[in-house]
């Protein structure tokens, strides 16, 4: 691990044009780091949502940080469609690579295993397959006679996996609990950047019950402390989503002007994102 960085230095490690993997919206979303990415003016990112995303992707797309998005869905959930995502796709301002949830999981698992592809059932007859020249249909070579077509998905190896977690220990091990898709993201990615609520003393790997839910420091490139770093989304077991703020985002992001006003108030203004506890520099 490189060490514990400030939030802005952590975001600075994500280069323009990177293939960036982000977690789904229900928890552990690195919203503070996403805002830092917007502030640094990231460009031409290739976004991979694992397997779907919400406000994090919408914010990056609306701010012009994204060139392509590979996703099973981008949505604000009960608050409706993700307005900046929909507008950007309709306007042709981002290139969309439509996928389906298990295809994204499986392609990351291929990278995790260091194999070139993973087969997946389903998909045949879907227009998703027609729109994805990188997906290949072969005849199952192990079938007992007869034709058995099956889709092969090339391994997906993100340049950077980025997520938020409740805590890390002083060795850089990160506790993720049952969020195994984040473990897979980290295994598959070249670099993994993590923001945490806090860094605790001790060693997570020394306790068997905690070790089972821990991402070892080996996979973690750098950490930044970001208290309430998932806000306005929630962090399971820690804090609830800020529903009033999310509803305000949905309302404002419906127009370009409203989105700009939102960014001026909550992204450019860094009050919410003062990173604390800088321990070591790069």
């Amino acid at each position: 691990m490189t060490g514990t960085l400030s939030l802005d230095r952590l975001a600075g490690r994500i280069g323009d044009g990177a293939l960036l993997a982000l977690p789904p919206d229900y928890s552990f979303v690195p919203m503070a780091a996403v805002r830092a990415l917007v502030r640094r003016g990231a460009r031409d990112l290739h976004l991979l949502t694992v397997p779907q995303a919400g406000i994090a992707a919408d914010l990056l797309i609306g701010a012009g940080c994204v060139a392509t998005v590979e996703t099973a869905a981008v949505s604000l959930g009960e608050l409706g469609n993700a307005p900046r995502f929909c507008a950007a796709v309709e306007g042709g301002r981002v290139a969309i690579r439509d996928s389906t949830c298990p295809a994204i999981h499986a392609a990351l698992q291929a990278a995790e295993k260091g194999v070139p592809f993973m087969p997946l059932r389903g998909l045949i007859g879907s227009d998703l397959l027609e729109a994805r020249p990188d997906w290949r249909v072969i005849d199952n070579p192990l079938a007992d006679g007869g034709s058995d077509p099956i889709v092969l998905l090339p391994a997906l190896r993100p340049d950077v996996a980025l997520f938020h977690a409740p805590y890390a220990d002083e060795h850089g091990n990160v506790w993720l609990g049952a969020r195994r898709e984040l473990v897979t993201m980290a295994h598959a990615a070249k670099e993994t950047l993590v923001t945490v609520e806090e860094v605790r003393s001790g060693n997570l790997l020394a306790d068997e019950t905690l070790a089972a839910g821990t991402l070892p420091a080996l996979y973690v490139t750098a950490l930044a402390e970001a208290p309430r770093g998932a806000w306005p989304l929630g962090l399971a077991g820690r804090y609830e989503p800020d529903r009033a703020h999310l509803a305000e985002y949905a309302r404002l992001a419906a127009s370009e002007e409203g989105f700009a006003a939102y960014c001026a108030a909550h992204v450019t203004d860094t009050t919410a994102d003062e990173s604390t506890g800088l321990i070591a520099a790069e």
Partner: protein
Amino acid sequence: MSPQQTALLIDVIAGMLGGLGRVAVGASSPIPAAAAMLARERGGGRPTVSLLGTQAGSDMTDGGRELFDRAGQGRIDAFFLGGVQIDGGANINLIGTGPHPAASKRFPGSYGSAYLYFVVPRVILFRVEHTPRTLVESVDFISAPGTSPPEVYRPGGPYALVTGRCVFRFDAARGRFRLASLHPGHDLGEVRAATGFDFDCDEDPPTTPVPGAETMALLRGPIGRALAEVYPRFAATFLGGSREA
């Protein structure tokens, strides 16, 4: 919708889940979630219910892929899908209308449909809006096809389509929907006019049964309270008052 109309949809979907072992429900699906809970209550704990995208009610420990792995293993008996458009061949479109990729109206995306539709034996399509805009002759984009050629591995597929006006059952051999029942207050002529595709139908289709007092009591009691943990706003339909978190 009134609580009675909502309860009717919950009741009719719950009736399709009786006797099954395991039901999974996607995110932002309060009516299917309520139906699955109602079926579980009636079945004395069977089917088991997995609600996705929520911490409360999740019984999965292997991350986002576990639902799909379970389905691939044959451990999910029923699931629910919707669609921006659904056509007469049960092809579903969750992506948007107009050309792809630069849609004229873009929606979130296909989620897990392009996989689950193939491997879950009983997929119930649910879309309250029943208009020529949603139920179309032919979808603009096939997120997942209703039927597949015989050589394609497909233990699963569409079972029924439940809308705000009626219930269709899917006839896989004919690759067509058959009207199963009309909800109270709706008639065949109206449903034909509101449906963009042709479907099979008896001359005098039955009426969808109205949920009984016992079902309403369950929805106002244990089901409503369980739902409130995940869908507080929706659960208030039955519990009354404002229970928004």
